[in-house]
């Protein structure tokens, strides 16, 4: 090898370090830039207008109080209901329909929020199934879908199944010896709960409750639709209202600051104190336990399983029944609906692709740091930054970008672009969570071989990463596209006649109480969501190569 070759090779190797850090660095820079721009936008805009003192605004504290109240209650009720349901599922590992039930519990996790809200309105409205049923049974009291009760019911619908699945995986972490001991000593159900199950629950439940608290703390679509009036707003909804209703930038800034501080605080608490929630939803077999044969135990489990199924299925059934009796033809022949659907598809596909590309870039560098440089902590830190979006919620981010763009152009004209950007950021944690394990595995197995053979990045992607990772890539893309497709968040800030997305159309139909039409739009939304997901999963994922 000639000296110049060595020099060349040395230069190439140095550029290898740059190449390794570049993608992740770019992504971090992009995310940080985005957050910085929107925060600076908020600060600048708020300083533009002088006015009353923001921290003595009683409305601000009323909103904060309500936000914390509803999030705490939602988390508490969700976990409290999830414990007996998960316990029943854990105690009955083999009944007919169990796997179906577990799947059903997964539905609210992927159901577009606004569609779930519609189900609630149909089920719980003045003329809904529940109130009609109560009336038929002779109860005069009515359940109000608007206000705290409606918000709590909707949050429980979305989060109880989530908590159940996470708790269930907590049950699988109980060592099988404990069950054998229980059998040997002849523990009864109560003793098993106290001595074996409760210690596990006490360790796992706070983390789960914390995550649900955070999700409900930043809840937007549900509270906006079911809030029913000024006191019932989360900070996210109040941010939206401060911008769109009052154009009160001082209040907006105060709300945003409170939001960031509290979210970051809860996130930090979750990271440092709570035991990490098991992210793999693998549902291993649970060992035989002595308390499952009793008749009473069967009855109790049956009750909780039925209740769990009912909480998820009732709103979906209500939605389905209004769909089939709804003005299907009329709605499906509306140009506006299809235009919104096409727009939603464009937004979803663009945002999903960006999420996956950003996730890929971030993980490429994380993988490079971990495998080539042995800096595991740096890799972990990089992976964690993907969750940054949990601390800077979409409405805040959207409002900041809105205010910055306003100085250059008509922000409504760029509305959909901002929606794409924010949705892409919101999808990033999901993309990272899906891509990380398989990418790490491929890197561990093949990185040295790739290095030894001297593949360039393009050949590496073409010959190694793409064939080995296209299934998780397709899954990540499908999920992020579907999430963004069904999202009703930032679009509320920018939505106008020309930028309406399908979830926005649905929101308006619910708002104007055209429930039959809303049910048809909701059905279309779900149908398109599933179709898009399936096409991406099959089309991009191809046949199994692994």
């Amino acid at each position, binding site marked *: 090898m000639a000296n110049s070759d060595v020099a060349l*090779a*040395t230069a190439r190797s140095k550029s290898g370090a740059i190449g390794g850090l570049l993608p992740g660095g770019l992504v971090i820079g992009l995310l940080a830039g985005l957050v910085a721009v929107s925060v600076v936008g908020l600060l600048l805009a708020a300083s533009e207008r002088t006015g009353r003192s923001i921290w003595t605004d009683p409305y601000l504290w009323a909103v904060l109080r309500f936000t914390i109240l509803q999030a705490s209650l939602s988390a508490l009720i969700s976990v409290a209901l999830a414990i007996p349901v998960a316990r029943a599922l854990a105690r009955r590992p083999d009944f007919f329909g169990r796997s179906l039930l577990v799947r059903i519990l997964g539905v609210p996790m992927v159901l577009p929020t606004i569609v779930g809200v519609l189900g609630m309105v149909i089920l719980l409205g003045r003329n809904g199934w529940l109130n009609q049923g109560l009336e038929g049974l002779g109860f005069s009291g009515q359940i109000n879908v608007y206000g705290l009760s409606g918000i709590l019911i909707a949050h429980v619908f979305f989060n109880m199944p989530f908590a159940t699945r996470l708790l269930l995986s907590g049950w699988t972490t109980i060592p099988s010896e404990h069950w054998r001991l229980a059998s040997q000593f002849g523990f009864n159900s109560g003793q098993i709960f106290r001595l074996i199950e409760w210690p596990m629950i006490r360790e796992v439940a706070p983390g789960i409750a914390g995550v649900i608290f955070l999700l409900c703390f930043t809840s937007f679509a549900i509270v906006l639709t079911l809030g029913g009036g000024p006191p019932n707003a989360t900070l996210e909804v109040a941010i939206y209202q401060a911008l769109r209703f009052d154009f009160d930038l001082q209040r907006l800034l105060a709300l945003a600051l409170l939001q960031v501080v509290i979210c970051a605080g809860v996130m930090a608490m979750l990271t440092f104190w709570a035991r990490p929630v098991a992210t793999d939803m693998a549902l291993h077999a649970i060992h035989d336990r002595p308390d499952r044969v009793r008749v009473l135990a069967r009855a109790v489990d049956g009750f909780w399983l039925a209740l769990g199924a009912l909480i998820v299925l009732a709103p979906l059934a209500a939605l389905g029944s209004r769909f089939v009796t709804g003005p299907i033809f009329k709605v499906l022949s509306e140009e506006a609906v299809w235009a919104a659907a096409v727009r939603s598809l464009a937004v979803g596909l663009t945002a999903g692709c960006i999420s996956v590309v950003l996730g890929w870039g971030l993980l490429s560098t994380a993988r490079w740091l971990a495998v080539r440089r042995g800096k595991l902590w740096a890799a972990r830190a990089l992976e964690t930054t993907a969750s940054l979006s949990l601390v800077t919620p979409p409405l805040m981010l959207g409002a900041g970008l809105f205010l910055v763009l306003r100085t250059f152009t008509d922000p409504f004209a760029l509305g959909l672009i901002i929606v794409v950007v924010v949705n892409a950021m919101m999808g990033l944690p999901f993309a990272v969570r899906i891509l990380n394990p398989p990418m790490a595995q491929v890197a561990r197995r*093949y990185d040295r*071989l790739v*290095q030894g053979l*001297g*593949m360039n990045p393009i*050949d590496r992607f073409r*010959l190694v990463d793409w*064939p080995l990772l296209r299934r998780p890539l397709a899954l990540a893309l499908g999920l992020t596209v579907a999430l963004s497709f069904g999202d009703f968040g930032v679009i509320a800030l920018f939505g106008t006649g020309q930028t309406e997305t399908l979830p926005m159309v649905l929101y308006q139909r619910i708002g104007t109480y055209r429930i039959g039409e809303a049910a048809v739009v909701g059905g279309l939304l779900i149908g398109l969501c599933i179709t898009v997901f399936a096409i991406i999963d099959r089309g991009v994922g191809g046949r199994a190569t692994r």
Partner: protein
Amino acid sequence: MPRDRTTTAIRVDGVTFRYEEMTMRFDLKIAEGDFVMVLGPSGAGKSTLLSLIAGFDRPLDGTITLMGQEMTGVAPADRPVTTLFQEGNLFPHLTVAQNVGLGIHPGLKLNKNQHAQVSQALDQMGLAGLETRLPRALSGGERQRVALARSLVRNRPILLLDEPFAALDPGRRREMTDLVSDLAPERGLTVMMVSHQLEEVRDRSMRALFIHDGQVVADGAINDLVSSPTSSELRSYLGH
């Protein structure tokens, strides 16, 4: 720079490396055409030594000189080295021929001549006719022979074997070791081979390095090391 006239193929000078709590330091010289066994308990640093030579790990200090060229900052693919790993030598989604072809062009852009070269290498490894198979359709021994075929077409003077035959049954393992022992002088290869199974080495006069706790603590012919172990670590390793 003119080619260094020495016959030293591998020269490791004061190379230090840290892995978790262990600091390693290596000094050694291997002549061109030598076949050297690398012995030692697991976690002693055998694989790390090979990784440093191959360029997968970067020394904190010291220099590695291969075939007379100093290697600091040279990427693994640009070193005169091919490494065979215990597993993961083949991509499961590529055919046997493609896996070998990667050794000629890492983007798999091969001309007719090069395709013939691939077939020839496979033929030489006794794998003729398996070109279009996927690795999962092969036995463990066949898979490692495919990897060996690729190292042949890569045509690098140094071959590092990081326990590539450890997962095979004893008969196969001996067969593969023999194959490499025959191939090396034929091709003029300098070989370093990490192994646990001393018994399977045909030629007991072969040189061996014994590594312990990140250092080479014994160096000599296998026979000598076994008959008169110089260090207590080597004695306990050999079960004396």
